[in-house]
């Protein structure tokens, strides 16, 4: 779900920018690009409405700071015949983000982008505007809005190097509560008569000695930002080194006649283990270091809109080695018992089926030779040693039979759950009061998650030991319940938010955790006739590793209002009354690629598809964050 949301999120950013041949201005260092080909869909949406979306608020508040009042996207000066492209990139030196788009009316554009002021341009026929942190460059009728932020670790490193080389002591020793009231560097700061002017001097020169640590850091950050921004812009406007020219796959993706397209070059992404959901659980430290494994790893996608049917079609491509691991990962069948625990009226569920053991074996076979070649990187060699030893010592059969890797999850609506509260009881004689624990009820979303296991005795052992440990505690006591009708489960009192019980069911090859009292007490063997139909799960059985389905209407309507802020409720309200369904499917994984499709069927009589798309994306953002 996380990766799906990521794609959607990227798409939303894409909605903002746009261009005709505007794609030609995308820097080659962009790792992620979303291009919205048909931004006419959004032209009726007011800018005020747009900036109200929570996802926009965080990203675009600097751009739309009151200048959007009573304007629609149509009024923003964008050229609707061009694509709007949003891009992100990160390398070891800097973080890059921005949008490229076509411009039909510059005065309208600057009525919205009113923080930008013209500055002298280094490039022929290019108009250059700056705001506090962004640059906007316009070439004929296309524009790029660019932000370059130097790698903060690099900035820290350079600042520390210069700071200590000057013979200064640690700046952090003054970092205590008194620091603000009695600044150590008060006199030094006073010597810098105009910090802004100082920064504009572009370098840390002889006056550097007068700067305190933070001023020095600011100067270095500013200088690096200028340096890297120039590097990026030189590549675009002088060297003609742009993404569309450096990556044919991107150029090819843009040629698709769809509503939008998506490009994500995972092989160039830094910090891969951060969101590599496949390997996060296996060998994260090692996978983070093996660029070789990720070469040619790219995700390409299309957004297709047909009537009330919105579809994201994504294809993940990879090299043979990674493909071999992925293939093993997906080489499993759906656990038939999962079906028993998904209620036929369940408004949202997902099933994730992987073969962790096979994937581990294949990964070990592929990765170890790569690691064994390493002779210098101490971290990597250490990781390799640990991995090799673990592989020798651990009983992998026991481990992977206990946790096979497959799991499922359901949202079963919102129910009143029994909790306790403290009441103050008053003595009528004196009005003295004392505390008394009494029964209470609260609304709670009901969730169920379960993993497949061949070794049910292992969780059983853990639960038995835990129940003994917990027996002396006032809170979170763990008990085994057998109601003599074949219904058995464990219950941990006050496990959730110190108030609601958590139930655990360990049978039928599944270990299930849920806060659904009904499931635990009445259906611990499964829902039987009330379970989801085989037909409903057919796609899960035939498809790849992930299948998910959300009845948007039921889910949104059931979600408790009072745990959301007023603003979030507004957004959820925007989806209420619309009967939409989201379905996520994946194809069987092979050695070259995996396809992932997200289909959203919506029914909306009043709003255009653009509004619907934004509402959906925003709701997912609100719910998922």
């Amino acid at each position, binding site marked *: 779900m996380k990766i799906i949301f990521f794609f959607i999120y990227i798409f939303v950013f894409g909605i903002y920018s746009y261009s005709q041949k505007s794609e030609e201005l995308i820097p080659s260092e962009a790792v992620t690009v979303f291009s919205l080909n048909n931004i006419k869909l959004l032209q009726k949406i007011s800018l005020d409405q747009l900036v109200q979306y929570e996802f926009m608020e965080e990203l675009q508040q600097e751009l739309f700071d009151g200048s959007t009042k009573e304007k629609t996207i149509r009024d923003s000066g964008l050229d609707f015949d061009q694509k709007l492209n949003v891009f992100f990139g990160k390398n070891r030196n800097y973080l890059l983000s921005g949008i490229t788009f076509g411009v039909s009316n510059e005065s309208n554009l600057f009525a919205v982008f009113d923080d930008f002021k013209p500055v002298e341009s280094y490039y022929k026929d290019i108009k250059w505007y700056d705001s506090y942190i962004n640059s906007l460059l316009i070439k004929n009728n296309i524009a790029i809005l660019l932000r370059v932020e130097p790698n903060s670790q690099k900035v820290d490193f350079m600042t520390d190097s210069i700071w200590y080389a000057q013979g200064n002591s640690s700046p952090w020793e003054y970092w205590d509560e008194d620091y603000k009231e009695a600044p150590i560097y008060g006199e030094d700061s006073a010597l810098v008569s105009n910090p802004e002017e100082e920064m504009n001097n572009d370098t840390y020169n002889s006056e550097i000695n007068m700067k305190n640590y933070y001023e020095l850091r600011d100067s270095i950050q500013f200088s690096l930002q200028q340096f890297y921004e120039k590097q990026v812009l030189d590549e675009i406007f002088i060297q003609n080194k742009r993404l569309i020219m450096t990556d044919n796959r991107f150029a090819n993706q843009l040629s698709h006649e769809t509503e939008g397209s998506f490009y994500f070059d995972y092989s160039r992404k830094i910090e891969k283990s951060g969101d590599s959901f496949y390997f996060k659980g296996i060998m994260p430290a090692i996978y983070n270091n093996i660029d070789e494994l990720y070469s040619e790893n790219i995700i390409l996608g299309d957004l297709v809109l047909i009537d009330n049917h919105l579809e994201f079609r994504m294809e993940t491509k990879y090299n043979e080695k990674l493909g071999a691991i992925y293939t093993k990962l997906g080489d499993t069948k759906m656990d038939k018992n999962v079906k028993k625990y998904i209620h036929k009226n369940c408004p949202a569920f997902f099933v994730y089926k992987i073969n962790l053991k096979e994937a581990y074996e294949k990964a070990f076979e592929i990765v170890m030779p790569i690691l064994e070649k390493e002779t210098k990187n101490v971290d990597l060699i250490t990781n390799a040693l640990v991995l090799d030893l673990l592989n020798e010592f651990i009983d992998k059969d026991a481990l992977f039979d206990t946790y096979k890797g497959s799991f499922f999850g359901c949202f079963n609506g919102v129910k009143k759950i029994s909790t*306790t509260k403290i009441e*103050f009881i008053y003595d009528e004689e*004196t009005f003295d009061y004392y505390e008394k624990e009494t029964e*209470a009820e609260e609304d709670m979303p009901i969730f169920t998650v379960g993993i497949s296991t061949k070794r049910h005795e292992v969780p059983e052992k853990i639960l038995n030991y835990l129940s003994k440990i917990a027996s002396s505690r006032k809170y979170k006591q763990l008990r085994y319940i057998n109601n003599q009708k074949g219904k058995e489960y464990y219950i941990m009192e006050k496990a959730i*938010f110190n108030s*609601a019980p958590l139930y655990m069911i360990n049978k039928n090859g599944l270990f299930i955790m849920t806060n659904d009292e009904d499931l635990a007490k009445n259906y611990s063997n499964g829902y039987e006739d009330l379970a989801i139909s085989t037909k409903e799960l057919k796609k899960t059985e035939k498809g790849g590793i992930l299948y998910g389905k959300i009845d948007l209407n039921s889910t949104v309507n059931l979600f408790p*209002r*009072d*745990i959301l802020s007023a*603003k979030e409720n507004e957004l959820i309200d925007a989806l209420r009354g619309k009967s939409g369904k989201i379905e996520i499917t994946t194809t069987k994984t092979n050695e070259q690629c995996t396809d992932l499709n997200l289909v959203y069927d919506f029914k909306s009589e009043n709003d255009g598809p653009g509004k619907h798309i934004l509402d959906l994306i925003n709701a997912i953002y609100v719910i998922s964050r």
Partner: protein
Amino acid sequence: MRKILYILLFLPLFLTSCIEIIDDLSLNADGSGTFKYTINLSSSKVKVNTLLKLDSLNGKKMMKLPEIKTKINQFKTALASQPGISNVKIETNDIEFIIKLSCDFKNIEKLQESIKNSLASIDSEIKNSSDFSFNWVSWNGSKFERSIPDFSQNQLKDLKAEDLNLLNNGSYTLISRFYKPINKCDNQGASISKSRTAVMLKANTYSLTKNTKILENTIYLDQK
């Protein structure tokens, strides 16, 4: 006091509909006494726990539990250092979300002054607020007047009607205790204890939002 109510009462009020507040003040013959203030959110544990996980609410940054505890401790330290205040205790129950503040004071004026100063020590902007001059209790030896601050109507405007209705589940209890019998009190809703040395006045939080004066009370002691 308004600010402490804002911090200890007002915020939780809007974080949860099921808040219980007990504002308990005991007065001795020499004007000294004991002040106890209890906030009970135990009937909304799920909701409070959920809200504590939010980064922001209605566009404002949400404090996390450690931050809230730090603020409370700062307040406690500041209050304990005030002249005329002693025996300051703050108990927090993180599981049930109950906060109990208690302290002894030399006289009513010292109590009010100390609370204001303590609040100012954790938020210097309070001094500039008109609320800073607000006094919620007075005592002249025979007549005792109590009130609670106005609730911020601006904040309430952001609440939907259905949310306001949920405030019906919350309560604010005002207890005043004395060293000798009570003769009478002005507020018709108040109850006098059988011992006639304590007065209790209770309102639900919804009613308070509609009429902040319903907890105002003037209590007259026997002159014998």
